[in-house]
């Protein structure tokens, strides 16, 4: 065949990466469709009387969050959950702004809220403090830059009630009020994340329990920890990855509730987005290294043989494609410079001819991947009862592939040289 006769090493790697990406997406779609088919044959689950609901503590770890803390606490107070069963613990992690005053003001006004102050030690230490100051059956976290939908906790609590084997439940995270194209791009990206988290939950493969409103069964997270006072670990600045992997490595179930909506403030500049993502990616790589026994290990099911290996391949593949793209762009620009230098600058209007349309298999594969991504976004909107804006999707398709490899490369370099991100401690 023509393609295989003329393939270079670069092309072979590209085809392999595209095949793996497509396989992964197809697998997720099949899992989603078959799960939904089975679910439609099941009896609907009855709602639980409020007296039977479990007690929940929501910890709000914060560091210099004076701008958003009040809104976060207000959204928690508006939760549709019995007051006597919901405790809100604000842990001020050594903030140097007005965070502590705001927290104490709320604590004095609402008996559900307790404000604690501690020296700055990072989010994990703040969560540990919250855990040792609570005794409810469920404990969760809400980052102080996020706001919950009133029904979110009730929906999540039902997941715990309906399945006693569930150790943690993750919500559907959405971007709050995007103002620029970068945030709109992230809104579409987070929508795709809703689908991914849902399917990962169906195949028992959630590997991260994100900061915005993941809720845990207290007994289970203590059970998988070496010390009850140190349940959340620093874990390279990404305790949510570590917690997810730790629960999975102990065969604990992590579920997802796509209707439990949490809105979060997203980075609004390229630099802040880069810093956030490089921290996430670095954390993922380092935590995966710490839990490397799970990678490719059939004992851990789908997570071991599919999700972790594919995620790793996609990170390194992204770096590779970025390198290739960069090399091609540099080579093209050098060529253009040589052209101008040798033959001067000529501006000509190209004539359209179908003959010159690129019909390589690579282009078709990329188009198919985009199509599958659109299907994923469609399903994401369906399961979270929201809608995907066309503009967000277009921005996601246009920009994400160009900028994501930058932080993937940065994270791989950092992980390789062992330079941990030195960002703000808590975030």
């Amino acid at each position, binding site marked *: *065949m*023509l*393609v*295989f*006769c*003329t393939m*270079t090493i670069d092309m072979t790697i590209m085809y392999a990466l595209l*095949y793996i990406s*497509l*396989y992964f997406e*197809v*697998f997720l779609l*099949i*899992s989603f469709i*078959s799960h939904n088919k089975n679910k439609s044959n099941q009896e609907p689950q009855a709602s639980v009387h409020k007296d039977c609901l479990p007690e929940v503590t929501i910890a709000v770890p914060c560091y210099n969050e004076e701008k958003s803390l009040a809104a976060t606490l207000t959204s928690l107070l508006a939760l549709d959950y019995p007051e006597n069963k919901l405790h809100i613990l604000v842990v001020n992690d050594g903030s140097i702004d007005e965070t502590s005053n705001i927290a104490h003001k709320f604590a004095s006004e609402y008996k559900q809220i307790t404000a604690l102050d501690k020296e700055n030690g990072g989010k994990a230490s703040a969560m540990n403090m919250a855990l040792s100051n609570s005794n409810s059956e469920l404990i969760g976290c809400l980052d102080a830059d996020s706001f919950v939908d009133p029904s979110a906790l009730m929906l999540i609590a039902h997941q715990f009630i309906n399945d006693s084997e569930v150790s943690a439940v993750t919500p559907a995270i959405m971007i709050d009020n995007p103002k620029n194209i970068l945030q709109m791009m992230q809104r579409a990206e987070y929508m795709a994340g809703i689908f991914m988290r849902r399917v990962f939950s169906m195949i028992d493969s959630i590997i991260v329990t994100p900061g915005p409103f993941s809720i845990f069964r207290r007994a289970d997270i203590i059970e998988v920890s070496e010390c009850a006072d140190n349940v959340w670990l620093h874990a390279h600045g990404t305790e949510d990855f570590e917690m997810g992997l730790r629960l999975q490595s102990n065969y604990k179930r992590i579920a997802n509730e796509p209707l439990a909506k949490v809105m979060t403030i997203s980075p609004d500049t390229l630099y802040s987005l880069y810093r956030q993502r490089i921290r996430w990616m670095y954390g993922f790589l380092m935590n995966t290294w710490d839990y490397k026994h799970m990678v490719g290990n*059939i004992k851990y*099911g*789908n997570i071991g*043989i*599919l999700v972790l290996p594919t995620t790793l391949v996609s990170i390194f593949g992204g770096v590779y494609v970025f390198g290739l793209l960069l090399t091609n762009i540099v080579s093209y620009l050098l*060529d253009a410079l*040589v*052209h101008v230098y*040798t*033959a*001067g600058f*000529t501006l*000509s209007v190209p004539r359209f001819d179908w*003959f*010159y349309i*690129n*019909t*390589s*298999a690579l*282009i*078709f*594969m990329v188009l*198919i991947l985009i199509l599958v991504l659109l299907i994923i976004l469609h399903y994401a909107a369906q399961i979270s009862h929201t809608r995907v804006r066309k503009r967000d999707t277009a921005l996601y398709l246009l920009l994400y592939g160009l900028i994501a490899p930058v932080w993937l490369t940065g994270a791989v370099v950092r992980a390789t040289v062992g330079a941990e991100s030195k960002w703000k401690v808590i975030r």
Partner: protein
Amino acid sequence: MNYKRYLLAFIITSTIFVTTILISNKLSEDKLLQVRAIEEKMSIDILSLETQFELLQELSCGQITESTILSSELNTLGSKLSYMEGQLGTNDPEVIRLKRRYSILQIKDLLLMRKVIDKCDIAPTVVLYFYSNDGNCSACKRQGYVLNKLSNDHDDLRIYAFDANLDLSALRTLVRINKVGASLPALVINGKTYNGFKSLSDMKVLLPELIEETNTATPDQTKE
């Protein structure tokens, strides 16, 4: 774990993957067929014109415009072939085969052009350009830019580009006749061979008739 799901995903992905490759191959083959069709049409046109020359010794020079059309078709063919070479690689057997035919067509067009020059007392400037894209000719790309620029600016300039590495006896003969050395790029201008890169200013010295044509042209006729 649901192994059936893994198998199903494998079947679906492989089907999509193979189908995509087959479609892409089919489209590439169609493009090559298109190139082949142009080549065939051109070879018939050239043969027809040659026959006309032989049949009618006194063929009117006014009727020889067909040769100019042929040359323009040769340019189109060359650019399509060059695109396919970029898509499928320089080692693709079909691309090599089409390039060989293209080279023969160029040589035939060159010979025909010489007949036209003799008969009609016209003097288009003819440049033979020998290049290599084996990676051993760093200046060939730059030389190509210079020749493209000249070709775009001067209708009377006829450039015949030959891949010197093609295994083609007619091409080898052309190389031998013109004493083209191993050092590429090489240009043959008015029967004289020049090895090595020639810049735009060098070319203007080597092709004074082009400069003259540009200088004597009225502003409306000048392309630059």
